[in-house]
């Protein structure tokens, strides 16, 4: 149920974002979604790709520091209050969201969000018990390809 997310350390200066993306593109790897957290001095680029192990190798060989994190993709109703419902469930279970970002595609009336939890397994259990849809990797990659 969990997805592998790649995170990269980048210095915050012109041109630093393009280089890793080019390296991945050159390896023929498609990026499903990404998010960038940044400060004035540095940033963390987070990527979801299907061939994460290959992408990790490519990036590390090119000299980047890459870490692997398990994240959870959740379907959220694309209507007012859709996200609030999910968050209420998490809050009720005392699960802290380390960070989250939206998926760039949507299907039907659902949007997809990526969540980073300290304890992804417990989060998945809580979300499922609440009747929410956790998207697994196969389903996700089938959908986007």
């Amino acid at each position, binding site marked *: 149920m969990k997805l592998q*997310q790649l*995170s990269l*350390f*980048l*210095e915050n200066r012109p041109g*630093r974002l393009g280089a890793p993306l080019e390296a991945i593109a050159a390896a023929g790897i498609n990026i499903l979604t990404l998010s960038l*957290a940044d*400060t004035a*001095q*540095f940033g*963390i680029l*987070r990527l979801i790709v299907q061939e994460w192990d290959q992408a990790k190798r490519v990036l590390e060989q090119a*000299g*980047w*520091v*890459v*870490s692997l*994190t398990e994240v959870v993709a959740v379907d959220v109703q694309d209507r007012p209050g859709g996200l609030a419902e999910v968050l209420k469930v998490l809050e009720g279970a005392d699960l802290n969201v*380390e*960070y989250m970002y939206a998926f760039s595609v949507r299907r039907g009336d659902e949007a997809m969000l990526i969540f*980073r939890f300290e304890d992804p397994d417990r989060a998945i259990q809580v979300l499922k018990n609440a009747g929410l849809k956790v998207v697994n990797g196969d389903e996700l990659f089938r959908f986007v390809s």
Partner: protein
Amino acid sequence: MTTEAELLAERRIWDPIETRPPEALRALQLERLRALVERVSRVPFYRDQFQRHEITPQRIRSLDDIRRLPITTKEDLRRHQPLGFLAVARRELARIHGSSGTTGRPTFVAYTAGDLKTWSDLCARFLVAGGLRPEHTAQVAFGYGLFTGGFGLHYGIERVGAAVIPAASGNTRRQIDIMRELDPEVLICTPSYALTIADTARELGIDPRSLPIRYGHFGGEPWTEDMRHQIEAELGILAFNNYGLSEVIGPGVSGECPARTGMHLQEDHFLVECLDPETLEPVPEGQPGELVITTLTREAMPLVRYRTRDIARIERSPCRCGRQTARMSRVTGRTDDMLIIRGVNVFPSQIEEALLRVEGTTPHYVIEVDRPERLDILTVKVEIHPEIFSDRMDRMQSLRERIGSEIQSVAGIRAHVELVEPRSIERFVGKAKRVLDRRGLHEG
């Protein structure tokens, strides 16, 4: 504004000894050197070495015989801390100061009442040479504390008979308010702080040249002729350089006269050698070398041939001001890797020690020192590698903050910490070059 020429013409000299002919001065130095050898024989560090090398006052026949005496280093002082170099009984002490050390632990320096009197006189000499008069008021914007700058200058000003405003360091707006209310003629601080005062005045809509200051005595950090011109133009003052180090007394080892062609060494109190740092042989006159200082008159903690690690040149040519003492140039470098940043002594080893406290940050780092505008900026760049990288921004931010606070606690200075990409710091074969000082302080 008083000009350099007018001040020269006044010929104000605090102590007639400053104009004593070189032969008479040398005779006095020799007499004092012999007495010193007698005095330091009470200090175990010297007694043992003197016994081994059969050194007695009688064997000091000329000033050249100083070369028979042992060298003293900062490490020697540290090994005998605290106060292992005392040559008097503890009850004789009147004050204890300290200098910043590589481990954040200060090296203590002790004074008798007699030492304090000497010190006041030494500061009075350069203060008077640089325009201070008994009717003046001087604002001291140096830190008061273990650091010798504040108290040294404070008592020097009082010794001259002028009034002191012990404003101490920091709070620049308040410094300017005090200046505008009390009209001091003289400002004492670090050279970079003088420029900060000018900047702050402008920010407040005050023309820095309208401030009452006429003379500035600056020290505590290296500075350049360019900076002097800048300070003088911006504040409309005459700026004077002075030199000293806490181990031998503090400020007052040397200071400029109105001719400002070097700082007059107070040779009746200090025997100053200029040596090749490798061979410890004297360099030819006028050539750069390491200053090695013997304190001729210190009572509490006399030092024999103390290696200052400061590189400068010494000139003995006659000076237009009438003083007969030798003059030293600005300090143009160090023989160790000490950096002086915003007046604080910082050793690269302290930065390393701070990084060691934060796991995984030491393999690749570099220390950069810049002076983009006025004030020194210390930047420590640390390469990120998998063990310290996290996808969570809060963890990365706290890593950066931890590095900053460890540096603050070990070195006592705020550093700008930058996390950088792997392999972005140059690799060296052999000893890594960890420090990049781009302030351009050491030309000439």
